[in-house]
């Protein structure tokens, strides 16, 4: 009981650290990149939330910010970058093109990056205003504080499965001994 409370506290503290230290990997491709520049700029200043460091090495990034249209040609690249990012990671889809393909419904554009990688927060808008992005960032921070997110869910799922297997094994072994 006591141990659980302590680890819970510790995990909360780590989540707090993570939400204020989101190093972004800006996967910037298209028009939204212009708004991304404004977002970094003096007026909106995403640095206030501690999410200022654009790390161009996926190993050091926490948040994959998919900025702009992803085409079918670009999709494998995006998938690869996502795989390279170290845990824990979150994905924010910036703008409608990344979220759903936007008004490009044709042979070359990907109808939303969630066909390729899981997404935690979708931002609508073509391109979204920086205020929307800041709102999304705050939402993501809440999510992180709740220990939520796609990869976090997968980790828990794996853990549950492992525990169930262990229990089964344990149960069967006691049976045989008895």
């Amino acid at each position, binding site marked *: 009981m006591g141990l659980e409370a302590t680890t819970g506290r510790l995990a909360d503290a780590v989540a707090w650290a993570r939400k204020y230290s989101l190093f972004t990997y800006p996967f910037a491709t298209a*028009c939204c990149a*212009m708004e991304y520049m404004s977002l970094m*700029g003096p007026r909106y200043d995403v640095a206030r939330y501690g999410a200022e460091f654009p790390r161009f090495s996926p190993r050091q990034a926490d948040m994959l910010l998919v900025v702009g249209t992803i*085409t079918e040609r*670009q999709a494998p690249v995006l998938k690869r970058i996502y795989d390279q990012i170290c845990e824990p990671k979150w994905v924010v889809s910036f703008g409608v093109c990344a979220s759903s393909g936007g008004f490009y419904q*044709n042979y070359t554009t990907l109808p939303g990056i969630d066909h390729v990688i899981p997404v935690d927060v979708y931002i609508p808008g073509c391109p979204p*205003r920086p205020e929307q992005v800041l709102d999304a960032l705050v939402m993501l921070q809440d999510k992180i504080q709740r220990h939520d997110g796609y990869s976090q869910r997968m980790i828990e799922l794996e853990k549950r499965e492992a525990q169930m297997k262990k229990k089964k094994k344990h149960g069967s072994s006691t049976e045989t001994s008895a």
Partner: protein
Amino acid sequence: MYGSDRLRSVSAPELDEGMPTEEMVLNVGPSHPATHGTVHIKLWLDGEQVTGAQVNVGYLHRGFEKECEAHTYGENFPYTDRLNYVSPMLNNVGYALAVEKLLGVEAPERAQYIRMIVGELARLCDHLTYSAAQVAEMGAFTPFFYAIKARDFLWDILEEISGARLTHSYVRIGGVAADMPDGWVERTLATLVQVETVIKEIDTLMTRNRIFMDRMQNVAVFSKEEAISHGWTGPCLRGSGVDYDVRKDYPYLFYDRLDFEVPIGTAGDNMDRYLVRMEEMRQSISMIKQCFDQIPEGDYQLHDPRITIPPKQQSYNTIEGLINHFKIVVDGIEVPAGEAYTYIEGGNGELGFYIVSDGTGRPLKCRCRPPCFMLMTALEKLLVGHMIADLVPTFDTLNMIGGECDR
């Protein structure tokens, strides 16, 4: 010459004869900070020196032409916005002029002036973004933020007139969407003063900076003849010393009534391309001021029921207006069969629209002549023989915009 799979430098240094060396292949992009995320450049390296380069574009091909063919003439403005997304107004203007040429109509004088004003504002945005990216990718972040600040001021102005920060879709066939709001002129002039200050700040921080000059001068020199053969236009061609500006040589709108100078480079290196753009910003500011002096009173849109939608008052209150609105929105403007090519001075050079009409409300073909696609054809040549670090300023001075290059 061209033709091989990639370009090789002719004079590779033979210093380390007898010592086995191996070429290193470096894949830059398609997601690399210096490539704006949409280009893949394969480099063959000898130490730090680039011995071969292969440029692969197309990572942002979004099917502009296919989408245009599926939509009516009026509906295509948002797609043109996203071609050169740094200066959407200019694309709007270019496309509107092309359709108007096919229709054989001309917008009212006031609309033309407004188009000129917003076009030059867009050019300011484009060049500010260019200089921001240029300096930021060379490691100086402070001027980057100054330029972004100034661009935000300009976006405020454009948002006020069009309703959108970046993707304006403000120009219409036969005019513009709305007249200038009250007090817009004064606010624009006040903003231009601020922008001028910022340009001066960037100038003092960068242009005479020794490190910046060393990085830019004599790098990626491109001769006049080569530039012409590669179809270069705009600031890059002028940087190579060719005096060609669509606004001066083939005046469209009312550019012939404005007094402005076209800056020309001498060496054709990165520095010249940078300086040409810096000077163009100042010229643009003066042009906008002249437009405000000259702009006449009058209509901002043609009143032709076959081309423009009627005022909201009419379409909400009269059945004729409603039918008219409905016809234009659903069926599109019926453009007589034929073909037309118009070209304006875009942010990166000659921005052409070649439209083929089959007489219906949707274009049979809507081709955009992308200036940066033509600029990019030369990148392989520009890189070979230089250092790997020169990739960054060279690529930036070409100001490749993915949406326009790959469409």
